[in-house]
């Protein structure tokens, strides 16, 4: 991809013609209308504005092949699968049309199996054997999404959440070796695995989504920190660090390499913000492998019959501040990356390329979850920035384990990765709504909330009870004893609502 400084403007507007962006903009209209006063003025702008902008930019971009090429990097299978499979499933209400619609996911699942079969066709006859699932990422993602949409029809919220979380854990943690594009890819993975790992110098902190020139960062999904390469890119913090790696002086002097990095990172950032706007912190509640692993620790506490700790507000705020401070310090270090000397030192300190990743517990926890204790990566040496990384790593890992063991999700108050998606909890497409008239403030929602959120219980005036910390796990919706009191809306349309039906209560035993 060639790019010169004059094109930077078109690079910036290009994303607005992306199908994902169309969804984003169209979705923003009701979201904005719900929140802003002066509805009429907005309605006019909102209805006529986007088509005009889109049309204009489309033509601008068609004139510019570079931008058109960059545009193509924005398309990704997750967006496609979401638009075709998941979004309709969320919006079409129960009934005949839903059954008709289910034909689509069923088709995708069938094709998923066909794709695996075709993957096995690439295996040479003399080496035939079991190589897990040989399937391309697009088919994997759409197949899994379709499978979940179908399963949803047969499950209640609790079991559906468990299924989604287990599936995501499998795909994100084990996907690295179990899900490969084809046989040669499988071989490459084995070769990469054989290389010796050195956490501190690992350039590619995250496995590469096997698309040329493309990065996909899901909100609230940590990377796997494994050298075998998988289907998922790093977390949003990795993305920000990549942005910080760009040397601004190089950019100013028109260096092509810096421009290319910038364009790739910007594209990834666009997609990521769009995902965050669409899903807010939902990924925290349903997808994040870190919290799924943490839930196993939490489950152990429950088994022991220990009550969960409900830490007081200052502790929670303290967690938040520490998380952000850690980001601040490590990002400053990342800023030093372009200025590292030959020996990897900056001002006499050894600094890794992705400093935040080196203290992230995901780096320790995910490999162990995927491959057992053998996979435990070596700890950074004490010579790295005066031992900051070794002791920081141990402290954060300890925090992770202890906070998941003692309370339900105290950790998630610390995690900066989740915090970013939290920005979209109010103002994004998801909204947790309450009908105060049905609520008797029983406090069940606050009791079951893994984030100890009290807004849902206490807010009696405003119907929107979303809050920054909410991970949209929907436990409150699942457990609220009043039918239709709580509900989750996506872009104004009810996705699910609390039910406490007689059948549900009497069929328990």
């Amino acid at each position, binding site marked *: 991809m060639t790019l010169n400084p004059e094109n930077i403007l078109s690079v910036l507007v290009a994303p607005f013609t992306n199908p994902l962006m169309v969804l984003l903009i169209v979705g923003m209209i009701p979201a904005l209308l719900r929140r802003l006063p002066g509805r009429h003025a907005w309605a006019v702008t909102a209805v006529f504005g986007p088509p005009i902008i889109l049309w204009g930019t489309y033509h601008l971009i068609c004139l510019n092949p570079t931008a058109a090429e960059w545009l193509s990097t924005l398309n990704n299978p997750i967006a496609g699968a979401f638009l075709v499979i998941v979004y309709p499933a969320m919006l079409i209400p129960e009934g005949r049309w839903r059954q008709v619609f289910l034909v689509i996911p069923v088709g995708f699942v069938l094709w998923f199996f066909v794709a695996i079969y075709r993957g096995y066709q690439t295996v040479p006859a003399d080496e035939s054997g079991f190589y897990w699932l040989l399937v391309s990422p697009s088919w994997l993602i759409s197949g899994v999404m379709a499978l979940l949409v179908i399963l949803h029809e047969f499950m209640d919220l609790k079991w559906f959440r468990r299924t989604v979380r287990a599936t995501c854990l499998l795909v994100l943690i084990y996907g690295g070796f179990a899900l490969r594009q084809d046989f040669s890819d499988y071989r490459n993975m084995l070769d990469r695995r054989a290389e010796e790992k050195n956490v501190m110098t690992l350039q590619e902190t995250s496995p590469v989504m096997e698309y040329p020139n493309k990065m996909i960062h899901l909100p609230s999904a940590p990377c796997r920190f494994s050298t075998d390469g998988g289907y998922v890119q790093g977390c949003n913090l990795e993305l920000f660090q990549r942005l910080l790696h760009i040397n601004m002086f190089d950019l100013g002097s028109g260096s092509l390499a810096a421009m290319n990095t910038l364009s790739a990172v910007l594209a990834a950032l666009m997609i990521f913000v769009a995902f965050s706007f669409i899903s807010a912190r939902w990924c925290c509640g349903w997808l994040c492998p870190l919290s799924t692993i943490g839930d196993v620790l939490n489950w152990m506490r429950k088994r022991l019959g220990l009550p969960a700790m409900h830490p007081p507000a200052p502790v929670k705020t303290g967690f938040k501040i520490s998380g952000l401070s850690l980001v601040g310090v490590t990002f400053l270090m990342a800023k030093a990356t372009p200025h590292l000397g030959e020996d990897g030192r900056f001002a006499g300190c050894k600094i890794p390329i992705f400093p935040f990743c080196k203290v992230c517990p995901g780096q320790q926890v995910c490999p162990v979850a995927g491959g057992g204790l053998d996979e435990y990566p070596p700890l950074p040496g004490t010579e790295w920035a005066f031992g900051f990384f070794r002791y920081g790593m141990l402290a954060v890992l300890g925090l992770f384990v202890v906070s998941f063991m003692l309370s339900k999700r105290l950790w998630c108050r610390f995690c900066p990765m989740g915090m970013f998606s939290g920005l979209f909890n109010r103002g994004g497409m998801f909204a947790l709504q309450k009908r105060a008239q049905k609520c008797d403030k029983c406090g069940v929602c606050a*009791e*079951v909330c893994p984030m100890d959120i009290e807004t849902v219980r206490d807010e009696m005036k405003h119907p929107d009870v979303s809050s920054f910390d909410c991970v949209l796990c929907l436990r409150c919706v699942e*457990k609220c004893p009043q039918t239709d009191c709580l509900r989750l809306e996506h872009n104004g349309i009810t996705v699910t609502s609390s039910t406490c039906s*007689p059948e549900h209560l009497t069929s328990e035993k």
Partner: protein
Amino acid sequence: MKNEPQFDERYRLSPRHVDNPGVEKRSRAVLHQQQQHLDRLRNRPRNIAYFEHAVRGENISDAAPLVGYFCNMTPPELIRAAGGVPVRLGCGNAALVQTGEEVLAGDICPLAKASFACVVDERSIASRCDAFVLPTSCDAKTKLGEILEDYRPTFMIHLPPEQNHELFLKETVKSYQRLEAFLGGVTGRKVSRKALLHAVRQGREQAGLVRRLQEIRSECPGALSVQDLFLMIQAASSGVDMEEWCRECRNVITEIEGYSPERRRFRHRVVLTGAPAIWPNFKPLSLLEECGADVVADTLCSGTESCYDPVVIDETGHKSLLRALSLRYVFASPCPAFISQGKRLNRVINLVDEFTADAVINYSLRLCQLFDAETYRLSQVLKQRQIPFMNMRTDYSLEDIEQLRVRLEAFLETLEEI
């Protein structure tokens, strides 16, 4: 946990029993009269006799210790988990009020007086109880505890004044823990996590059944009279075996599910709120039905309120279960014992909406200051929302029944004009 004694041992009095043949005779007459009222109801479930026997205390198993309790804030689940049989003590017998008056002050509500009279009366179920549990839900109850202690070991549950979870949840859980220790002393069995979980599950099943009953009644109020509904609900807290109750209740549900009215029903649908109507005082219920209104929903703690909402099980640790009980029984309670009336108002307005009721009737029991004091706000708030409202201020005696009937009929007539 060691339980500090709640009362001063030194000033204990020896129990006093009353034998008043006059009162006895009249109380039997009240029971008989109420029974006749019920017998006149049409279209009753076939197995209603089971519930009738139960509320009269005829189905109590003697095997386990009986624990008498007052109010909705005492979780029957805890008593069951401790191996006791919960028996709700509230009594609505007009004739017994007189006996109670002799020990308690005259200006105390008839419910407290009649219920106390049951304890004194050696033939009643209350006097067969091995222990009493009551919350500090009103002045009468607060003072009743010490008097009851003269008769049987008694435990007072300390209620927070405010339903503020943050400030008072831990305290309420502690109260329940003390109650557990007390019950353990009575039954000789510690409350185990498993037993508690089982009892809570059973309670949830009961809630499910009552919800189903209400669903059917909302659709077609003629399927089950509100008096029978109250009878069934109160039977559940009269020391019956819960499994058996659930079975019988399921039978009723299957029976009334098949009910189809001969013609469309044009009776008014009302929501009943206010003081508890306890067997045999079904006066407000029968009056409303006789005047041509269907009570489709209620917030009475002796009615659906007592078991409409389930205890929500999240974690199953012992303490978590106690927290769940506190949330359900104390923090969601619309009882006027707490400083804010908001929950009750919210509930009433929601019930009007959910059950498409035409009006709200407030049953305010004379001499109950708490319910009396709430009437003003209730009437004003409903007026703002243009929901027709009538206050029915009365007590247990049957003397004002005709007068009430006239007022009710006039009120229901005004509904027709709307």
